[in-house]
């Protein structure tokens, strides 16, 4: 049984068709990434799966429970952390989490014990008596995750869970998400951070114009890129006549396009050296996945 099966999913708002037949299968225990530009239909897809938005047509099953025939069983499997911080501004952190557990039928005494553990893990225990409007952006994101996790979901849906958090907090959340996934929780993640997909996800799909445009393991998607953009740090200023472009990073930096199928990176560096250009370091201009995504979807901003 798959964690999530979507077939021919369509959604129209008035005359505008946002989803045009999405097909997607996510296996149990997967960590799956969903990529797409703003307006590609990611949030609509997640909204339909979690019961917030009514679909126009198509089928969705969560652990074998159709959202049409057994919506309560399907929703009981899901924990959702939405893109926006959707909790009452006047409730305390603890109240938000305990209420969500209550709505899922978890008695308050049991939820309180579980909340203790989650608050400690997500560094929220010092805020538990604070009203949510007093929290920082990062703490609000962690609260969204805590609220989704308290219901012990089998499928955890995360819509840009680390947006607005600093690097340390993001990495701490990644560790927690890895732990959850290792304990058997299936995770469906959308994010604008390609590094997040590369670090966490086994497979990913690109949603474009309301359809799944590409799908595969993260290394597969990255390898479909072919050419890569590199940033070279040079010993001296860029010498004219070389196959290099100036870089906005400074006079000692240059950019070039490199195709792994045409030779090794060492060959390229040696060739430049023979022309009087010593390379101090080399790095990718963007993650391979990001490069592929931008090329695949027309280089529009996310």
């Amino acid at each position, binding site marked *: 049984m798959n964690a999530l099966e979507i077939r021919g999913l369509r959604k129209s708002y008035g005359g505008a068709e946002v989803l045009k037949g999405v097909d997607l299968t996510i296996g149990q225990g997967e960590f799956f990434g969903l990529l797409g530009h703003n307006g590609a239909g990611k949030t609509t897809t997640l909204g339909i799966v979690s019961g*917030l938005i*009514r679909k126009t047509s198509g089928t969705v099953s969560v652990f074998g429970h159709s959202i049409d025939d057994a919506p309560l069983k399907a929703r009981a499997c899901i924990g959702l952390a939405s893109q926006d911080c959707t909790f009452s501004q006047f409730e305390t952190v603890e109240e938000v989490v305990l209420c969500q557990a*209550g709505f899922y039928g*978890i008695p308050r005494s049991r939820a309180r014990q579980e909340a203790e553990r989650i608050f400690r893990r997500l560094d929220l225990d010092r805020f538990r008596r604070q009203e949510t409007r007093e929290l920082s952006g990062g703490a609000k994101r962690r609260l969204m995750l805590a609220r989704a996790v308290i219901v012990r979901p089998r499928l955890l849906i995360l819509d840009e869970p680390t947006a607005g958090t600093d690097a340390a907090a993001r990495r701490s959340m990644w560790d927690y998400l890895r732990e959850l996934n290792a304990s058997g929780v299936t995770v469906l993640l959308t994010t604008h951070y390609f590094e997040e997909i590369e670090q966490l996800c086994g497979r990913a799909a690109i949603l474009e114009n309301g359809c799944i445009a590409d799908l595969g393991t993260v290394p597969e998607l990255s390898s479909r890129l072919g050419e890569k953009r590199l940033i070279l740090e040079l010993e001296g200023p860029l010498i004219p006549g070389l196959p290099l472009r100036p870089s906005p990073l400074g006079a000692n930096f240059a950019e070039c396009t490199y195709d792994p199928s045409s030779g090794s990176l060492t060959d390229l560096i040696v060739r430049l050296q023979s022309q009087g250009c010593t390379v101090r370091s080399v790095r990718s201009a963007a993650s391979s996945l990001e490069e592929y995504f931008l090329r695949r979807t027309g280089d529009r901003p996310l």
Partner: protein
Amino acid sequence: MIHPLIVAYATMVRREVLRFSRAWFRTLLPPMMNTWLYFLIFGSLIGPRIGTMGGCPYASFMMPGLVMMSVIVSSYTNVASSVYSARFQRYIEEVLVAPVPRWLSVAGFVTGGVIRGILVGLLVLAVAACFVPVSFHAPLHGVLMLLLSSVLFSLGGFLNALYAGSFDDISVVPTLLLTPLIYLGGVFYTVDVLPPFWESVSRLNPLLHVISVFRYGFLGVADAPLELSYAVTLLLMVLLFLWAVLLIRGRR
């Protein structure tokens, strides 16, 4: 082990009660203050000049209507503001994603309104008891209509909140619709004193039936047959409930 749906319902009710009790000075105090002013002006100052109404001293006649007016307004505004806030801040999602049937979500919000309505009704009755002797002719009718009317107007508040596009929209309906219906529904007079045409029009006002039965519970006088009043109230309640469930199911 408690059934998960009971836990969910209890959680919704608890949250609603906490919400209005946190701001008791805005939710519970004003109706008491208003009632005190009504009794001071209409009961003590003007009432003796009016004499009797429906065979009772004016202040005693007015008392059930004032209690019911507070119950109706409190139930309505409680649910309207709670649901609209939940929509505005989008934390209504917490309920919508949960494995809870939509009718139970409606029931959770409505129960909050009912509790506030009844609580306000009891507080207002306590204020009224300072001005007039309170006695019960048919207490069961009074209690039953207190419950039914608070459910009915909580459902009205729920629908108002689902249609509202701004905070202004949840105050416009009470001002333009609810207040005239309350004032023309026999809070301050019996419809017998109206000309025949306006008496017939008044009987179409559902609030007249609610107030009529409630007054019967205290004083034993009613503006309409009790059976008709119950039928109108129950029919409206069922229609509004179905409307609310259909609306919340058909979102977006």
